[in-house]
């Protein structure tokens, strides 16, 4: 019966562990994408230095703004030339008479505030245009949000299933020991005295059950990281580093195992403790 309880914890924590690794990595990618979102405010060519500084000050003071970086039009042109490679050479002609605008590059504390902040900036004086990937950003945030919620719901659902499964398995173990509980009650044992061994049993079952998932998920992540990470190097996304992620995950799995083990055994013993 102990084997059945430990196996129930093992199977469910293995699922939770695998799912958790996938979710955390997807979340990491989502955060990277979100952090790349920025607002580019093109300053009107009619603005003099004072107007520009005043505009910068106005933007800095807006609620939700994290950083404001000024990029003069010369730098903007250099960036353009550089980004176009050999074809960019043609734009060098404009170095004498730069048609580009000075730009403020803004990042918000919460990436989802981007649209709101951009709207406020649009109303300021000497703002020519505000760009933040209108239309696409809203879609992106929506997709990220939905996938995060779905992932969270799946993990919570999985945990509940785990608790149900473990509680049922432990219940079977306890039914086998109901005679012992019955006698304890008859001779005057307090409920806490009766619960204590079951509490410890649940704790050990949970911890024991979390060991295999920890070993399996850690080694799988170690190999997956070694294989996948080099292939992602050229892209803007990356996996969460093995250390300390796997150690944190191990701690979470042990705590989860212990918690559901204790919860399962206490819930099962409760039924036999009613006076």
């Amino acid at each position, binding site marked *: 019966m102990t084997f059945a309880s430990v196996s129930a914890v093992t199977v469910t924590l293995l699922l939770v562990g695998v799912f958790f690794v996938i979710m955390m990595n997807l979340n990491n990618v989502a955060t990277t994408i979100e952090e790349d979102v920025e607002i580019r405010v093109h300053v009107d060519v009619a603005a003099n230095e004072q107007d520009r500084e005043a505009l910068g000050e106005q933007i800095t003071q807006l609620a939700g703004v994290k950083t404001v970086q000024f990029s003069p039009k010369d730098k903007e042109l250099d960036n353009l030339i550089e980004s176009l490679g050999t074809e960019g050479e043609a734009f060098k002609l404009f170095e004498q008479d730069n048609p580009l605008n000075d730009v403020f590059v803004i990042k918000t504390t919460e990436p989802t505030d981007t649209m709101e902040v951009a709207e406020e900036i649009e109303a300021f004086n000497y703002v020519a245009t505000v760009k933040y990937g209108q239309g696409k950003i809203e879609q992106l945030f929506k997709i990220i949000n939905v996938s995060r919620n779905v992932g969270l719901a799946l993990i919570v659902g999985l945990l509940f299933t785990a608790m149900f499964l473990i509680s049922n398995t432990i219940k079977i173990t306890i039914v086998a020991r109901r*005679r012992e509980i*019955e006698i304890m*009650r008859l001779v005057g*044992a307090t409920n806490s005295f009766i619960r204590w061994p079951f509490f410890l049993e649940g704790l050990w079952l949970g911890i024991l059950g979390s060991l295999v998932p920890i070993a399996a998920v850690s080694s799988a992540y170690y190999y997956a990281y070694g294989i996948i990470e080099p292939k992602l190097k050229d892209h803007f996304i990356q996996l969460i580093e093995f250390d300390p992620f796997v150690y944190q995950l191990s701690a979470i799995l042990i705590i989860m195992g212990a918690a559901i083990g204790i919860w399962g055994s206490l819930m099962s013993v409760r039924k036999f403790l009613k006076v």
Partner: protein
Amino acid sequence: MIEMQDVYKTYRNGVTAANGLNIKIDAGEFLYVVGPSGAGKSTFIKMMYREVRPTSGTITINGVNLSKLRDSKVPLLRRNIGVVFQDFKLLNTLNVYENVAFALEVIEEQPSYIKKRVMETLELVGLKNKARMLPTELSGGEQQRVSIARSIVNAPKVVIADEPTGNLDPDTSWDIMNVFEEINMRGTTIVMATHNKDIVNTIKHRVVAIEGGRIARDQQKGDYGYEA
């Protein structure tokens, strides 16, 4: 010592097992509870150690009103009441000594006291030389002696026995009754539900007959009064 006043008990399925019970049992008494099957004897017994709660009425044991007793205090009540069952209720994985010691361990007594007290009690029930044996290695009578030893090891004021000789042959039943007599002579109140006509008619004590959840008869040194 034990007093019931206007005690009624109706179970959820509508069965009324106690229908206005009134009784007073003094300290040191030996009381037989007799009556046909389904008359309410077990409910009468179970209400005394708060395994069953009355629907209405008052039950007082040693001055404690069981109707007002909080659930958390029930273990304390049970430490002053020994209970013996027809099916012994022993733990087969523990030996004789451990089964008896169990009652003192759960109330967290000192190990040195437990050892001394368990051996004294096993001597009283005549099982001192079988302390290391498992219940499955003992006869029915010996198992019941272990059960009795467990019920008296913490020196309760009352011992409640529900058909303690029900599973035993006549000779063994007499042995068990001798043990109860011995315990009663030491001042412990005994309440025993039984169907054993010979015992009730031979070892005379107060007899309470229950029929239809009521006390139909209450006699000092009474007879069994039914066909066996």
